[in-house]
C-alpha cells in the first residue's frame, strides 16, 4: 500500500487519495489539429520508471499536488505543488 506524503497533511494511506494521471499536460488551443487534440486526450507517457503524476488528497485537505514516483518500485522521488515545474532528476521534494 502506498503511503503518500501530502504537502499539507503529511504521510497518509493511498486510500485517502485520488489518482489524476500524468501531470503537466498542455491543453491545446481550440483550433488544434485532430492528431494534436487526440495526443492531449489519450496519449500518455506511461513510463516504466519515474512518472510525473498528479494526486488529490480527496479524503483530507482536498488539494491537488504532483508526485514524481517510480512506477516499478513505487519509490516517491519528489512531491511538489500544482503549477511547479518537474524537479530535475534525482532532486528530492
Amino acid at each position, binding site marked *: 500500500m502506498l503511503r503518500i506524503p501530502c504537502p499539507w497533511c503529511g504521510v497518509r494511506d493511498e486510500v485517502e487519495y485520488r489518482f489524476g494521471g500524468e501531470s503537466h499536460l498542455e491543453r*491545446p488551443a481550440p483550433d488544434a489539429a485532430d492528431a494534436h487534440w487526440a495526443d492531449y486526450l489519450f496519449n500518455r507517457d506511461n513510463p516504466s520508471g519515474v512518472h510525473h503524476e498528479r494526486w*488529490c488528497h480527496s479524503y483530507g485537505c482536498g488539494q*491537488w499536488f504532483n508526485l514524481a514516483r517510480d512506477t516499478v518500485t513505487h519509490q516517491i522521488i519528489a512531491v511538489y505543488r*500544482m503549477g511547479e515545474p518537474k524537479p530535475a532528476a534525482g532532486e528530492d521534494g
Partner: protein
Amino acid sequence: MAGPSYRLPEGGWIDRSRPLAFTFNGRRLQGCAGDTLASALLAAGIAVVGRSFKLHRPRGVLAASAEEPNALVTVDRGDGPVPLARATLTPLSEGLRAESRRVFPALGFDLARIIDYTRALWPAGFYNKTFKWPSWHAYEWALRRMAGLGRLVPAPDPTRYRHVNVHCDVLVVGAGPAGLTAALAAARAGEDVLVAEQAAEPGGSLEYDPEPVEGQPPREWLAQALVELARHPNVRLVCGATVAGCYDHGVLTIHGTGDAGESWWKVRAGRVVLATGAIEQPLLFGNNDLPGIMLAGAVHRYAARYGVACGRRVIGVVNNDLGWRALLALSRAGVEVVAVIDPRPMPDRALSAAAAERGIALHVGATPLTAHGSRRVRSFDFITADGGRERVECDAIAMSGGFSPTLNLYAQAGGRLRHDPRLASFVPADCRRPVEVVGAAAGITGGAGPIAPAPVASTSQWVDYLYDVTVADVELAVREGFDSIEHLKRYTTVGMGPDQGKTSNRNALALVAALTGRDPGAVGTTTCRPPYQPVTLGAIAGDRRGDFYAPARRLPGHDWHARQGAEFEDFAGWKRPAWYGRDRDAGIAHEVGRVRQAAGLFDASPLGKIEVKGPAAAEFLDFIYLTAVSGLKPGRARYAVMLNENGVVIDDGVCARLTDDHFLVGTSAANAGRVAHWLEEWRQCEWSRRELIVAPVTEQWAVITVAGPRARAIVQALPGMIDLDAGGLAPMSQRAGRLDDGTRYRLQTISFSGEASFELSLPADRAPAVIERLAEIGAPAGLGPIGVEALLVLRLEKGHPIVGIDTDGTTNALDLGFGRIVAGRKTDFVGARSLARPADRSADRRQLVGIEFDPSAAVVAGAHFVTAGAGPRRSEGFVTSAGISPTLGKGIGLGLLEGGHRRRGELVSVFDQGRRATVRVVDRCFYDPGGARIRG
C-alpha cells in the same frame, strides 16, 4: 479409551493435570492443555493424519510448525467447521473435533489409492498430454472430484473478525531468541516496538533447544526477557500472530488468531527486523513420505516441548551437524534413538562421540536408500561406508536435509537473495528498504550437507508432499525443457500448494541445479507472494460485511418517508424511497396520478448543490458547462449540461445566479460528489491563478419538491413563504427567504415533472419539521409523497433524458440535440474541440429520440432497434427508457437510434430476447409540449 501411549513419562511444557478430550475422524482421544492437535495425535499414536493431494498416499505429521504439509485437517471447536487447519498450529481444546481429508471408504483404506498404484501413468503434466478427445470437459468432472484438499461445509460463521491499524518504529517478526534480543535493544532505545510471534506463546527455539543463551539456561533467559519487555510501555508483544505480507512503503499485515476471534493488522512500520528462523528440509530417499518419517527438529521439539515420543525406535537420517544435535537432545529427552545414518564420511567428532556414548549405532559415509512400511515406516535400508546393504527396524525416522532460512517476507520487501554454498541455502543479499534479518534467518551454520536423490527409483522420492511431486517429475520437467524455476513450478506444481514450498522449494532447486549443471544461485528462486501463511478471508474483510460493506446515506426525512410506507432502494449511495405502499406498479401509477391531478411531495435532497463564488465565477462556469451561464441575471436559473473533454455528456443540472459573482450549481444526485471533484480539479489545476471559490453544500440543504396543479397553493400556505404570484417568479427563478419559525429556505421554480413545481431547499436539520408541516397543509388538497420510480415516469412523459440512463459513456452533446447551443458558443469549453472530430459530427451516430408504441407491444428498456427485413440482424441502437404512460395511456420511451434525429415518424423494429415489436420515432416531449402547465 487407552491413555496416550506415546506420551513420555515426564517433560514438556504441558499441563498433564488438565486432560482435554477431542475426536479425530470420530475416534475419541485425549491430550493435555498445552498440546497442539498434532502433538496430541502423535501422543495418541496416530500415524496417518491425511491423504496426499494427487495419489492419495497415507501421510503423517512431518513438522511441528507452519511448514507442515500433511496434517491439514478440518477443525470444529463447536462453532462450525474450519477447513485446512494446520494441526501443528492448532491449540488443542476440550471437545475439539478434527477430520482428515475425505477419503473413500475410510482413511485407513482409500479406494483412490488405485491412482497411486498406477502412478506411472500420471507423471507431471500428464493432463496436458491426454484427455483431449472428444473434449476435456468429458473428463473434467471426474478429475475435479478427485481434486481439492479441504471441504467447504456451508455454515454460519460466528467468528468475530477485527481490523487493527498500527503505527510503530520497528516491527520485530518472531519472538525467538533473536527476535526478543532485537526487541529489547529497540525498547531500550525508546522506540515504539511491535513484536509478532506466530506460535501461541513466545520463545521459539528457547522452548526446546537446551543450548544456553548469554550464558543462561534458555527458559530463564526467556522469562527475564519477557519481564523486561513488559516493563516498557512502548512495547507490544502479540502471539498467535503471523506476519502475512510485506507491502510497499513499509506496510505489513498480520493475521491474528485467538479466543477473541481473528484479526487483520495493518502495520505501518519505520523499520522491520526479521527473526523468522530457518525451516529444516527433508532428505530425498525412497518412500520418504511414509507416516513416521519426520523432520529431526520436529521430533526433538515434540519430545522436549510436548513430552511426546514420535516413535519407540527412532533412527536418524541426517546430513548435517544440527541434525545430530537434535538426535542427541532427543535421546537425552528419553526417546530411544537406535541409529544415525549420515552420508558424510566424518561428521563433527564431539557429536559422534556423544552419540556413541549414548549407545546410538553410527553409520557415517552411508548412502540412504529407502524406507519400508505401508501405514507407518517399519524399516530403513542404506548402504554402509564399506558398500554393504543394511536394514534397520524402526517406527520413526528423524531426518534432516539441512535448513532453509525463512526469507519470504524479505523477498516480498524487495530484498535480493544470494546462494551461499557453505550454508547450501539462500541468504539475504541486500534490500533497499529498512529490513534487517537476524538469527537463523540470516543464515544458519552447521546445517549444511550434501543434497542428492538416493540411488533408488526416483518415482518413490517425494520433493513436494502437498502436491505429490517426486524426483521423477522434476527430472521429466527438465527433460522436456521446463528447466527455468518458474516453468518447473508451473509444470510440476512443486511449491504451489498451501505451504508455498516451505519444505519443497529447496530440494527442487538443488535437483534442477544438478540436472542442468547450473549453480543453484544461477537457477534462482521463485517469486515469494503474500501471504507467508494462508489467511482467513473473513479476517481480511474484517467488518466490511452486510451494512458495513458499503455505507448508505440517509435522507434527513428518512423516518417520515418510512412512516408513509416508503420502499427504500439504493440510488447512488443513498437509501431513497423508490415508491410507497406494498404494490410497486400500483404505487407508482397512484403517485404519478397524484402529481398530474393534485400535488406530490418528492425528496430531492441528494441533488448536488455547489456554490461557486468569485470574480472569475461566471467565466469559469461558462468554461465548465456547454450551456453558458454568464448571461443569467441574478435570481434566474438555467438548465446546464456538462461534458468531459471527449465531448461526452457526463452530467446536467440547474445553475442559478445568486449575485453577480455568486452561483449555485445543481448536479444530478448520482454525480454530486463527482462534479464537485471535477470543478475542484479544474479550479486547482487549470484555473489556479484566478480568484475562484468552490464550496459543495449538498449535506447542508435538504431539498423538498412540491409539484402539481395544487403545488403553488400548498407551498404558498407555508407561514412566511414569499408571494409566489408576485411578478418575476416565473419558471426557472431563484429566491431566498425565512419561514415564520425562523427556518431559512431557498426556493427554485424548476420542473422535472412537467407540472408547476417548487423546489424548496431547507437546512437538513429543519427539513423533517417542514415536511410534516407541508404534509399537514397539503393533505386536504391531496398532497402525498412520490418516490423515485414515479418521478422517472413523470419525466419520461415530459421527455427529459437522464444522464447515465438515457445516455451511455459514448453519447455526446450533439447526440442529445444540443447542436444549436454548441454552434452558438463563442468561447472555448470543456469538450468543445472533441465535438469537431469527424466521428463526433457523423449523422449516423446513435442519437436520442422519443418512441411511441402500442401498450400491448413488448418494448422495454434494454431492447434494441434492429434493421427490419432479411439479412443478418444488426443493432441500430437501443431503448433507454420505456413504459406505459398512466397519463397518456400509450407506450412511450426514449432511445439512442442511429441517425435518429432525421428519422422522425419512421417505424422501427425492436428486438428483445427473441421477441420483436414495432415502435414509431417521435418527438421527445409526450406531455404538454407547450409547457402551459409548468407556468401553472
